[in-house]
């Protein structure tokens, strides 16, 4: 946590302090991170989003430390309703649903962040390449991008997941990651197209900077605020994708996730016969985690890209 935060803040300091255009656009000085966080937390979305996600992190960490049950331990009390012993009831094998839900949090967050990282890296590289090169290469990349935008994500994921065969955590993350890059590529490309016409890029070219240098030092830093907000939203989408895949029986088989709990609940027709908590509670967790990341993403977008219209 600490390292991650320092990494991000370090990254931001470097990016913003050496980037006059961006600093100007944000009306911020060199030491901007504190201000960004202040601005971010001043929005109600930033505040509540952060609170929700922190609560879920506590939920995930607390699961290992405080809960009396083993998430995989079966018992004879099957499909019981909510009680003081079992806050969310029990499942078809007598496992405590609250414990399973708490442990599922970790899997969801891991899937969300790793899949996001894959999508972001792919999307940024493709977007940078396509926007910077332009011409026929841009045309080709954009057509391929269209394909990924057009295929219903669920169908693509279903097909890949079912043909792939192996259904462990890693392959599901890869499936979600490689189906989610196209929107990012679009956003990055659009931004690159506008930045590469700016004067500071012309100037860099005029003094003989190399392509790689221009992309790395001048274009990429200006794309980062855009993809940063987008990345947080992508985490939400990845978590949603995983739960949908798991619910359809195509999720990871080696970890317990919220979608899988819901799939089991549905298979034992808990929606009609109860216990209703078996369905309601894991689902509510999904809704709130997604809500939390969406809030943070929107708040980030507002703070980092004040002049951009919200999507």
């Amino acid at each position, binding site marked *: 946590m600490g390292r991650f935060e320092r990494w991000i803040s370090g990254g931001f300091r470097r990016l913003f302090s050496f980037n006059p255009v961006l600093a100007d656009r944000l009306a911020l000085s060199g030491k901007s991170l504190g201000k960004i966080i202040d601005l971010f937390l001043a929005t109600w979305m930033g505040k509540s989003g952060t609170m929700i996600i922190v609560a879920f992190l506590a939920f995930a960490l607390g699961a290992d430390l405080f809960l009396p049950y083993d998430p995989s331990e079966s018992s004879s009390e099957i499909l019981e309703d909510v009680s003081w012993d079992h806050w969310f009831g029990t499942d078809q094998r007598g496992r405590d649903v609250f414990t399973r839900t708490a442990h599922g949090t970790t899997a969801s967050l891991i899937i969300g962040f790793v899949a996001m990282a894959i999508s972001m890296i792919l999307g940024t590289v493709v977007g940078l390449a396509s926007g910077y090169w332009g011409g026929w290469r841009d045309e080709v990349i954009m057509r391929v991008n*269209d394909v990924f935008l057009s*295929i*219903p994500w669920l*169908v693509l994921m279903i097909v890949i997941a079912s043909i792939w065969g192996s259904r462990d955590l890693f392959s599901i993350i890869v499936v979600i990651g490689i189906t989610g890059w196209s929107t990012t590529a679009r956003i990055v490309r659009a931004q690159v197209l506008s930045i590469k016409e700016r004067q500071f890029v012309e100037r860099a070219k005029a003094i003989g900077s190399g392509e790689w240098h221009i992309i790395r030092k001048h274009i990429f830093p200006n794309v980062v605020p855009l993809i940063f907000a987008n990345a947080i939203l992508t985490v939400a989408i990845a978590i949603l994708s995983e739960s949908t895949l798991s619910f359809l*029986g195509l999720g990871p088989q080696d970890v317990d996730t919220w979608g899988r709990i819901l799939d089991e609940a549905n298979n034992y027709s808990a929606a*009609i016969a*109860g216990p209703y908590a078996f369905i*309601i509670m894991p*689902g509510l967790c999904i809704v709130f985690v997604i*809500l939390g990341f969406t809030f943070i993403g929107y708040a980030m977008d507002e703070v980092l890209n004040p002049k951009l219209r919200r999507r």
Partner: protein
Amino acid sequence: MASFRMVLFKRCMNAFITILLIMALNFALFRIMPGNPAELMQRTPYASDYLIWRNIERMGLNDSLPVQFVEYYKDTFTGDWGISYFWETPVIEVLGSAISWTILLVGISTILIFVIGMALGKLSAQRRGKAPDIVITGFGLFFYGMPVFWFALVLMVIFVGNLHLLPSAGYMESGVPVFPLTVDKLADIGVHMILPLTTLVVGSVAGVVLLMRNSLVDVLTEDYIVTAYAKGLSERQVMKKHASLNARLPIVTTLAMDTAFILGGVFQVEVIFTYKGIGWYTINAIENQDYPMLQFIFFIGGVAVVIANLLADLVLVRLDPRVKIT
């Protein structure tokens, strides 16, 4: 304007190229994955040797890859989409009626999403910062990220599990042929559609509401709105003649982009309510590793979205003269 034809041509060309690429991806996906198609077919639990042989023959697996590739395009365009392993009939016959049920569901829900989303978004923007706005945006944000399948289950808990009001499965009473249609049958179809439709509409309307609101809020700050008010037009006239017309533009694009998402939602809804459209057959095909079915569904899904986007582009060019060729 003369350039409208150019735009039309370019957009159609792009759509066509996209479809060709989708087919290429479809071709590749079923061949580059671990295990060759023949092996995959051997794995399928239901396929008889004869069917496997016919499909291998159809896919031309004994030919070289380039030949297979050309054959695949030829087959797709001539309507030869293979034979389902599980149903043992041509894919198109299995899915023929399923497609119409899915289109019915998608069509009605898209119209409802559009109409309700615009109305609520407008209300929200007009009363910005007041109670209706807060309630509508609040609900919008809450439903925005809600998993469709979970919302369907919650509706099921309420209306089927507790109130016993609505049927939980199927598109109509089973065992009855659809044709000839009678009023009773139509009513039955309607009742069976309530839960799937509600799920889809509530799930997707949130995005349109939020977008319409933000778009309208932006438009309302434009100079021409101030001018319109200054001319002495009533709020209703300004809204109707100036604001909503312009705020509508991004909705068209988004709704088309959302087709992919709505389709994804339809799949989930169909699975939960055993509504035997494309989505239900997809899950069925996965369980039985029915590759010809999957391949066709993949193709048709992509084509549907491409066409939806093309239509939206064209509508947009018509609605907004400022749209340029990109």
